[in-house]
């Protein structure tokens, strides 16, 4: 091999090794850090794993929000109008959190089937519904109308 070719081969090998290490690490990290989304119906049917970080979304049930008087602990139910899941959270809820609003909670299920949320997301537009929630509702055939059209405009 001429020196030039040798050099090229080295460069190519460097790139190939670098890229494969990067891809391997990436896939490993990706597998560790994906959060699957489950609807209340799926959770009620026992499809969601316990003690694993998941996302769950639905509409906050009217009258279900209960606050602890002495701390920031709060408990509420979310529903896809078919099944309901209870969410427990300690902290400050987002501005657009309110009863009847579509939200996504991130956390893990405990053995009682309650979602211990570490993060509650409600998006920044009152007409906006998280796509996962909209789809879960549509699947359950419970998309609220006529607001449903507004969500998709």
């Amino acid at each position: 091999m001429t020196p030039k070719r040798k050099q090229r081969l080295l460069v190519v090998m460097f790139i190939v090794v670098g890229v494969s290490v990067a891809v391997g690490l990436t896939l490993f990290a990706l597998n560790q850090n994906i959060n699957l989304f489950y609807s209340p119906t799926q959770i009620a049917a026992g499809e969601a794993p316990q003690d694993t970080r998941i996302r769950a979304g639905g509409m906050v049930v009217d009258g279900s929000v209960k606050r602890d008087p002495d701390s920031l602990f709060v408990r509420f139910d979310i529903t896809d109008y078919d099944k309901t899941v209870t969410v427990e959270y300690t902290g400050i809820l987002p501005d657009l959190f309110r009863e009847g609003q579509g939200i996504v909670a991130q956390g893990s299920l405990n053995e009682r089937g309650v979602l211990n949320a570490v993060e509650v997301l409600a998006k920044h537009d009152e007409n906006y519904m998280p796509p996962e929630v909209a789809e879960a509702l549509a699947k359950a055939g419970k998309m609220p109308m006529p607001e449903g059209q507004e969500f998709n405009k």
Partner: protein
Amino acid sequence: MIDMMVPELGEYALILALCLSILLAVVPMVGASRGNELWMGFARPLSKGMFLFTLISFLCLSWSFLYNDFSVVYVASNSNSALPWYYRLSAVWGGHEGSLLLWALILAAWTLAVAIKSRNLPQDIIARVLAVMGWVSIGFYMFILFTSSPFERYLPGFPQEGADLNPLLQDFGLIVHPPMLYMGYVGFAVSFAFAIAALLSGRLDAAWARWSRPWTSVAWAFLTLGIALGSWWAYYELGWGGWWFWDPVENASLMPWLVGTALIHSLAVTEKRGVFKSWTVLLAIFAFSLSLLGTFLVRSGVLTSVHAFASDPERGLFILIMLAVVIGGSLLLYAIRAGQMRSESSFGLLSRESLLLVNNVLLVVSCAMVLLGTIYPLIVDALGLGKLSVGPPYFNALFVPLMAIMLIFMGIGVTSRWRQTEISQLVQQLWLPGVVAVVLGIAATWLYSGELQHWVTIGIVLAWWVVLSGVRDLYNRLRHRREKLAGLTKQSRSYYGMVLAHLGVAVLVVGVALVSIYSEQRDLRMQPGDSISFREYTFIYDGNRHVEGPNYTSDQGQIRVLRNGEAYTEMHPEKRLYTARGNVMTEAAIDPGFTRDLYVALGEPLEGGAWAVRVQYKPYVRWLWLGGLLMTFGGLLAASDPRYRKRRVATAAA
């Protein structure tokens, strides 16, 4: 009477701009391939006309906003007569349609700038560059006119009052963030146009790299500024004190930035040494494609995000087709022409060229990894395998180590030589900066926190490393000069631009390391009279006061801050109710400082007159945006180097 027709005038002007862009895309291009001077000469006047009519169209929309013409659907859904005039104007780009019009305006402005500023370029090149800009413009004008016209009317009955601008967007940050970001995104269209023009003309010498460099640096500087402003806005406006969320839309702006950073370094090698030509062309294509992909991700509504405006599948499909045409077409052209590119020189295995190649590989790999994390949920969803999201831990786990490696190479890169560098020489140059960086880094971390948290230590050591190796490089440059101060003024503007930008990276790294690890946050229930202490600060809550704003009412928290037991300042976080839409918004109170921010936000009212309050201590958070500003100025300074304006002289000297 004429004022009734302003929106229609705006629409006509936009149609005229589309017609001109079609002419611009065709006539000079045909002229250039046939060598017809007259046809090529049309490129500049057509660019000017295109800009003029886009500007008229934009002014018409602004006029409708300023004078509250609620018969225009877009105005009615994004503005309100109670808004102050400056928010009525910035509301022009507060929604999907208007921000696309702003995009088109900026594209036309860049085209105009290229037309005016490039008098010393060969005519066939400038004709081709402007024609490519014309092609891109056609896509955007058609997108606006066919899928998202901001001039549509509510007729015959129209609302008497507008729905108001989203309160999150009623803010100085929104006035400046989108235009700056778009300047960056669209600026890469210029680099793209230069690359395509070079491929088309077959003149793949290093000259196009020199023409393209200042434009690319300016675009990169604006993109940097846009991202920094976006981060700053999110920090003070979203009310939870975060500055980067790995939100898909943030990623959409970070990806072109990473590739753009690789591009400006690769362009430097191509210009100086005539190598990496095909790689540079490819990066230029990717930088612009990623800008388009960003637009697609944001505008099509496929993502769950802060920025996802009302979505529409038709629009998504349009951008997807445009993306396919741009990427497919340019890669096809690349495949046909890239084989003709020849390196003009060679370089050793250890040289500035190869070190910059390492920098490029690292940047592109981190971009690929961000891209994967961003679109992986979309792919999985499209395949029907379920709904999922990729969390920040994924991005942090990969991005942080990659950047740490890059910082190490940054220090080596600036002190290395073109063509061939000996290891012994590098060691001789760098052992001192290396040792001093480790000592200073560990000492600084220890002094600051009394412990050696590993990521903070690594971050501070690397920041010192970047700074000190830069100092070593400067020392080398001045070593043989008798008058050191005079030598300082002899260095070129591009050199100082690089120094500033690298310094910005170091400052940014310090900020990221400290604010990520040493931020303190407490969410708590506070009754009037309650207090909480952080380090030397004590926050005392004195209850709320009712305040009336122009288009909102507000509960304003009264918080006294003591420092070491003595009165220091008062902070007034607010919970606002915007009456037009009934939106509730958190307005955080921030006491900014060079080494720390105090950050207080109100949560929600609780029973018994108490409020949920979030109190935060953010060390060195300002350094994030200071770093961004330094990089921005670095990019602009490098682009202003006089040698880019002296083509003949420069070629003669080279």
